């Protein structure tokens, strides 16, 4: 049995777990929609489509949607369920099986990716009444789903690191809070060139900025390959780093 097959089996189990705890999906959908409605409601009139160049003719909700997508993708439950597996002893059962150490950590991340695609699709549909459309077309929609899901995998991988290290739900939850600086030290209200100088520096150093800009370009414009390459490149590199660190931790796990 190959690592990929094992990861698929474990991913299937993680998805089943997600389907059996639909309540854990509620905040994943509610909070991002809440932010979309509130931000659009408050700033929609400051940035009317007709006179705001950076909206490319769409509403301010379209500009805000990437923040909501990234927020949703960062609400994954992989790490908390991993802590449960560790506390309940099931993780030891899996570790005592001849399962490749990579599959042990990648299984849940695969499930996280699938959930990310579904949640992104749902959010795209919810955003339709706010006048949001994906300007880059069908290919753009696919890239949007994939990029958001991949971010979910990266962030899930980061959370799993904390879970493996701390083996505590409280510590894992606390670790998840780094998402707030990551999400808000970005050009999330206006494009980067309109930010104040300190904010612009922070946003430029923040990898989430480039993921957000890639998502935004897909919604507002024709495919911008340079922006997309940066966004996918960052997610790809971070993804590889997260998986490698996870595997290292599982190998030395005592």
């Amino acid at each position, binding site marked *: 049995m190959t690592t990929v097959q094992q990861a698929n089996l474990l991913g299937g189990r993680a998805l089943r777990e997600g389907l*059996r705890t639909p309540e854990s999906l509620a905040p994943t959908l509610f909070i991002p929609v809440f932010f979309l409605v509130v931000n659009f409601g408050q700033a929609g009139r400051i940035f009317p489509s007709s006179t705001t160049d950076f909206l490319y003719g769409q509403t301010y909700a379209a500009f805000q949607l990437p923040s909501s997508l990234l927020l949703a993708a960062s609400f994954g439950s992989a790490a908390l369920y991993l802590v449960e597996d560790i506390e309940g*002893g099931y993780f030891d059962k899996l570790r005592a099986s*001849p*399962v490749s150490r990579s599959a042990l950590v990648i299984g849940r991340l695969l499930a996280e990716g699938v959930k990310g695609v579904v949640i992104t699709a749902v959010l795209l549909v919810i955003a339709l009444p706010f006048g949001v459309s994906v300007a880059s077309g069908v290919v753009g929609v696919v890239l949007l789903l994939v990029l958001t899901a991949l971010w979910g995998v990266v962030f899930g991988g980061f959370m799993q690191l904390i879970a493996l290290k701390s083996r505590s739900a409280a510590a894992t939850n606390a670790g998840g809070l780094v998402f707030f600086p990551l999400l808000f030290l970005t050009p999330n209200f206006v494009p980067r060139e309109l930010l104040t100088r300190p904010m612009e520096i922070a946003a430029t150093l923040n990898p989430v900025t480039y993921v957000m800009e890639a998502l935004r370009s897909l919604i507002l414009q024709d495919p911008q390959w340079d922006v997309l390459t940066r966004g996918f490149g960052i997610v790809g590199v971070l993804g590889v780093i997260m998986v490698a660190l996870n595997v290292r931790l599982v190998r030395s796990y005592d």
Partner: protein
Amino acid sequence: MVYEEPGTLAVQASGLAKHYRGRAGTVEAVRGVDLRVTAGEVFGFLGPNGAGKSTTVRMLTTLMTITAGTARVAGLDVAHDPDGVRRRIGVALQEAGLDPRQTGRELLALQARLFGSTRAEAATRAQELLVLLELEDAADRRIKGYSGGMKRRLDLASALVHEPEVLFLDEPTTGLDPASRLTVWDEVRRINGRGTTVFLTTQYLEEADQLCDRIAIIDAGRIVRQGTPAELKAGLRERRGLAVDPTLDEVFLDATGRTRERVAGEVQEVTA
């Protein structure tokens, strides 16, 4: 010195040690344990709470790094070929390791597939084990709702999916009612009868007496007695000049430096 072929040993540990390093300093949980378990036997590993039984089991089952010494299980070195060892062993730890959100059947089928079975083979194997351990009625309910005894039996079943060469059971009957305990004993005998070596830890000396061909007693991280129950009893009888064989309880108390009087005294101190 009789030459023993390494292939006939299911478990072989020499100088096995584990030190836990924590903020409060280092705990020497296991300090140089030598074990030789012959293939095909039921081996009992006894010792008071905190003696190092679970730590030893976790090292032998690849779950924990080894501080010093070496261990071979089913002929393979635990540190150098952990995956090979994992393929050949079944493990049911002291805390039953189950996933509350799966059903018993799903858990067993997944476990079988992780050991390389096809979907159909896994379904068949899961059904067999559910019948064997009397879990059919609960098979399609989520494990969350299982009783403690059902969880233990399911945990044992999950250790058997791939018909392991060596089965490690860490206190398999703790917390079971007498009927469930007998089910587990029967199962251990049945598995052993088909050639699987069983390495089990227990707090129940009667259990060791009934089930085990040979036992080792560990105290404070060191082996203090090793042999067949009969040998250990005879040894104590000779040393004490007793008229009849002592019980395994007495052997245990003697080996771990606790006499009945001292145990009684400690109880009195607590109640005083």
